[in-house]
């Protein structure tokens, strides 16, 4: 029986009834000699939700939007292995993006039946769950780690008041408290920026200007002084007159987080260095440490902006919040981030901005 001629007929009542009974959008195409697709049939659900104009599809992995013809969609999907889950965000008729799992069935190499299974709710639920985990962890850091310096200060003041320690003792402990306070300040700054980004989703304002790299580094250096001293870090930085075209505050936060990370993962008495290089097109800011390094998987996780967290070699608080922000801000400023690392030898974070 020839499917094309006999089963599919616009007035085939039997066929219509069955296909339209499905709650999923279904589209049937014929595949031409040259591989081009010609739509033979859309079921009712397809016409109602997606519409019959070309589908605007966004893959979740690549996050690009383009008007994808069904041809291209088919080619993209058929090049994927069968096991690979194919999820697409489809801009539907009502201008709402819905997430579909797309299943292809090939009949006789001639007919292509495509069933789109909407999984928007499942995906939204997963996203909510992920956000909820992130918020739980942020709250736990806020309520626990951020208290540490306060507890220490409180204990010291208490001992001072009760004459358990004298002023000299008290002074001796201040650098330790200062170091703890600095880390919490960095964390709170990151948190504030992150929350702002969450609230303003997609409409973060950036104000690019020519920024002196040296000015920023000199400004943020005091924040690390206590950690550098405590970990006996050899901090290497040669002042530079190079400028970049970026948002000042975002750039400052990027550099601050990367230096803070380098110190966090450097070994005691280890090295942390900042180099600024430029050719006529690009400025590279290279922040390097000889610390515990990262595995390939960890680098991939960082680049996929999944929040991962590691305690530093001196149990510095962390969360992955910093690196998530760093990447968002680099992207907003049209820069790029490269990570080179060898476990147990150290890491190199290279931030590049076009001039």
């Amino acid at each position, binding site marked *: 029986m020839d499917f094309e001629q006999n089963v599919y007929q616009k007035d085939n009542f039997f066929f219509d009834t069955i296909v339209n009974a499905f709650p999923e959008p279904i589209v049937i195409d014929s595949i031409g000699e040259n591989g081009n697709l010609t739509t033979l049939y859309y079921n009712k659900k397809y016409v109602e939700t997606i519409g019959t104009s070309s589908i605007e599809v966004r893959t979740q992995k690549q996050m690009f939007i383009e008007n994808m013809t069904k041809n291209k969609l088919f080619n993209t999907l058929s090049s994927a292995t069968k096991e690979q889950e194919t999820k697409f965000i489809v801009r539907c008729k009502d201008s709402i993006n819905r997430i579909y799992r797309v299943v292809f069935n090939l009949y006789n190499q001639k007919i292509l039946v495509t069933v789109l299974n909407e999984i928007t709710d499942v995906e939204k639920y997963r996203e909510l769950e992920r956000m909820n985990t992130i918020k739980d962890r942020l709250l*736990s850091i806020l309520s*626990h780690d951020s208290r*540490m310096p306060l*507890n*220490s200060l409180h*204990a*010291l003041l208490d*001992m001072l008041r009760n004459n*358990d*320690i004298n002023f000299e*003792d008290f002074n001796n*402990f201040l650098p*330790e*408290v200062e170091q703890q306070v600095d880390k919490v300040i960095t964390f709170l700054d990151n948190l504030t920026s992150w929350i702002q980004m969450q609230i303003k989703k997609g409409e973060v304002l950036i104000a690019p200007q020519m920024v002196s790299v040296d000015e920023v580094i000199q400004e943020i250096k005091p924040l690390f002084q206590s950690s550098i001293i405590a970990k006996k870090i050899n901090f290497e930085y040669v002042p530079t007159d190079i400028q970049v075209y970026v948002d000042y505050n975002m750039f400052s936060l990027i550099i601050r987080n990367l230096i803070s990370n380098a110190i966090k993962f450097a070994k*005691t008495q280890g090295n942390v260095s900042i180099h600024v290089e430029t050719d006529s097109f690009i400025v590279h800011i290279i922040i390097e440490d000889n610390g515990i390094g990262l595995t390939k998987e960890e680098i991939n996780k960082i680049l996929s902006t999944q929040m991962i967290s590691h*305690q*530093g*070699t*001196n*149990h510095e608080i962390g969360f992955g919040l910093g690196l998530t922000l760093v990447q968002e801000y680099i992207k907003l400023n049209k820069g790029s981030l490269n990570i080179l690392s060898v476990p147990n030898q150290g890491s190199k974070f290279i931030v590049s901005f076009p001039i």
Partner: protein
Amino acid sequence: MVENIHHNTYYMIVDDDIINNKICEVIIKKNMPNSQIISFTEAYRALDYLVDTNNHVPDIIFLDINMPEIDGWEFLNRYEKISNQKTKLIMLSSSTNEDDMNNTQKYSLVKGFIQKPLTMQKLIQSIVS
């Protein structure tokens, strides 16, 4: 001051947080002026001390969990092999993580878990229990 109990107790504190070590010292000295205290900010030094049989064996060890290089767990793994069973080991940590609390139960030589900061009440409880 706590009368009649463990006046001459020998305490060892293993924690990289110098402020906590000072708090412990102050509280112990205040309540048991005759007790002795030795503190280490690096766990490996504490282990070196414990291995050396010439050294006086502590009665109670307060051990932190989050420490650089050798952390509390690694300390326990190594200490298990040299422990004399007479010494009472108590975890003293700011951790509120349930996993940490559960993990300590795997070590038979851990006799308690105290949330920082150490107070007089917590100290007395830990030594009489």
